[in-house]
């Protein structure tokens, strides 16, 4: 006799629906409604000839792409460190800020020396080299001083430490370099204006940012997939102990991971200066947290994912406030730009923490 033929049992609900589920569903439905009504309103406005014009939308998209490329570069550092060590390096935003701020002094010196006007390409190369060097050094020193001793500690301990490091660096920089906003020089001559790509006029600065970011990403992709060190990094991310047994120097590989992540943050730092000009000691926080969002969006530990996540978030942040919140008739939506980004972060972590393209983390880091 089987249970199915027996008298029907008092059957408990297969999936229990608790108060927590109610709240989660409320958030889901709320988010869908907000986005839906917002889009509907915006499209309606646009068709009715109200609201921002087509060119305004195009500029927002380009701005979003440039910004997103930059987020992607920073996101790589979060993603790789998480992949290898399994913790969120909260101080990575400061690594980016350090490169950007020191880069400013290089740019400033080149403006005064005249190189900025004479040969902007060389000047840009020097600027990026400086900021990459600073960020790389910074990342490596942080690893050595703060994180190395915490390899075996519970996951939250290095996270809390990295918060301390972030604070420490921010306020060291505010003391060292003052609290005034430093302003990057504008690109000289024609580069200050727009260039035409396929008949679409695009701001030259943004184009440069996108191009440089793409080059950096290709370089990184090559490095991780085609070099010995890159393979070592992937092996250590998969399983530290086995990697060590296979003769990989784990310490050195971890340092390399921080160095590569730092270098990418350095590139992003220089690009940030070109894109937004103003930089000050607390500039690292917001791009840092947004880059982390990008890393999660693309799937933590997933290198192409981090790049894609950055671009997606940049676009979403560029277009989203006007498209969604503007469509709802909310005033001064640009103020809410960061709310949109933080909402993306929160929703992503709550509903799809493994990202859009799948996370790749070592077996011991899966909680």
């Amino acid at each position, binding site marked *: 006799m*089987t*249970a*199915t033929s027996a008298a029907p*049992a*008092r*059957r*408990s609900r*297969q*999936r*229990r629906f608790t108060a927590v589920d109610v709240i989660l569903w409320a958030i889901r439905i709320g988010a869908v409604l907000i986005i839906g009504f917002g889009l509907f309103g915006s499209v309606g406005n646009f068709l009715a000839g109200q609201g921002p014009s087509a060119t305004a939308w195009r500029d927002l998209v380009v701005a979003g792409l440039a910004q997103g490329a930059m987020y992607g570069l920073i996101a790589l550092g979060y993603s790789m460190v998480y992949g290898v060590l399994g913790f969120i390096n909260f101080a990575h935003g400061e690594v980016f800020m350090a490169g950007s701020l020191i880069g400013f002094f290089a740019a400033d010196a080149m403006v005064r020396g005249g190189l900025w006007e004479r040969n902007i390409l060389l000047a840009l190369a020097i600027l990026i080299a400086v900021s990459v060097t600073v960020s790389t050094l910074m990342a490596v020193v942080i690893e050595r001083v703060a994180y190395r001793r915490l390899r075996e500690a519970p996951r939250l301990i290095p996270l809390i430490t990295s918060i301390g490091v972030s604070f420490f660096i921010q306020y060291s920089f505010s003391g060292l370099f003052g609290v005034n906003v430093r302003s990057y020089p504008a690109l000289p001559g024609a580069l200050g204006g727009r260039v035409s790509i396929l008949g679409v006029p695009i701001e030259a600065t943004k184009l440069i940012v996108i191009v440089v970011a793409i080059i950096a990403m290709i370089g990184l992709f090559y490095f991780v997939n085609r070099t010995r060190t890159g393979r070592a990094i992937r092996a250590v991310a998969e399983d530290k102990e086995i990697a060590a047994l296979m003769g990989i120097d784990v310490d050195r590989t971890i340092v390399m991971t921080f160095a590569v992540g730092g270098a990418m943050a350095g590139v992003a730092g220089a690009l940030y200066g070109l894109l937004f000009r103003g930089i000050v000691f607390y500039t690292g926080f917001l791009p840092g947290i947004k880059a982390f969002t990008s890393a999660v969006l693309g799937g933590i530990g997933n290198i192409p994912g981090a790049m894609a996540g950055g671009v997606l978030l940049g676009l979403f942040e560029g277009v989203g406030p006007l498209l969604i919140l503007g469509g709802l008739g909310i005033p001064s939506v640009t103020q809410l730009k960061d709310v949109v980004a933080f909402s993306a972060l929160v929703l992503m972590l709550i509903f799809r923490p493994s990202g859009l393209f799948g996370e790749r983390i070592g077996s011991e880091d899966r909680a």
Partner: protein
Amino acid sequence: MALLEIVGLKKSFGGLNALQGVDFRIDRGEIVSIIGPNGAGKTSFFNVTSGIFPPDAGTIRFKDEDIAGLPPNLITERGLARTFQNVKLFPNLTVLENVMVGQHCRRRSGAWDAILRTPRFRREERETEERAREVLSFFGSRLSGYRLEQPASVLSYANRRRLEIARAMATEPDLLLLDEPTAGMNPRETAELTELIGKLRTEKGFTVVVIEHDMKVVANVSDRVVVLDHGVKLIEGDYATISTDETVIEAYLGRPESKEGAA
């Protein structure tokens, strides 16, 4: 009426079919052993039954209620407690606290009672501690005296296993699932625990399912033996039948002289 009746239990992890339609039943007052080679699905069977993972298919009727898919805490509350193969204690809580945690689902006092120290709270705290001591006294002098205040992390391996059983007993279950209770114990301790498992039924009235590799223990404690292999039930019956069955010997015993089996 069976206390626990499982029909067609299936569970796969990725491509691995850990359980491929297992049927199982146990009546009140029975002691049943589950044996099988490593990877046969024994621990998966416990994990699905106790709610750690929901089953892919099949029914789990416990005390005439289908508990498949319930979260583990509710299954424990309904009277099904377990221990773990790789002992899972709260290492930094004391021995007594570990057992008191087991009483959680049998008590009702909440935050308000705790803040206001209501009569219910006082009564429940007193009962919880008394009950915890009573459960621990089942193990004689092994877990008593100064050990009550020691953190679980400093206990010997055998004592950790005992403490885990004590914690499961403290949830006041009808059915106790013990996952390799004698693993890592020396022969003397194993013999002692074998006797205790018998007492779990005679003195405490528990129904027990035990996963065990030590055939001497299996022979001594079980009314019935279930053999799992590759996620299916090979055969079941009393120890004498099982130990002479051709398929079992082929699948598992292989070398009947090695009594430790595949452990």
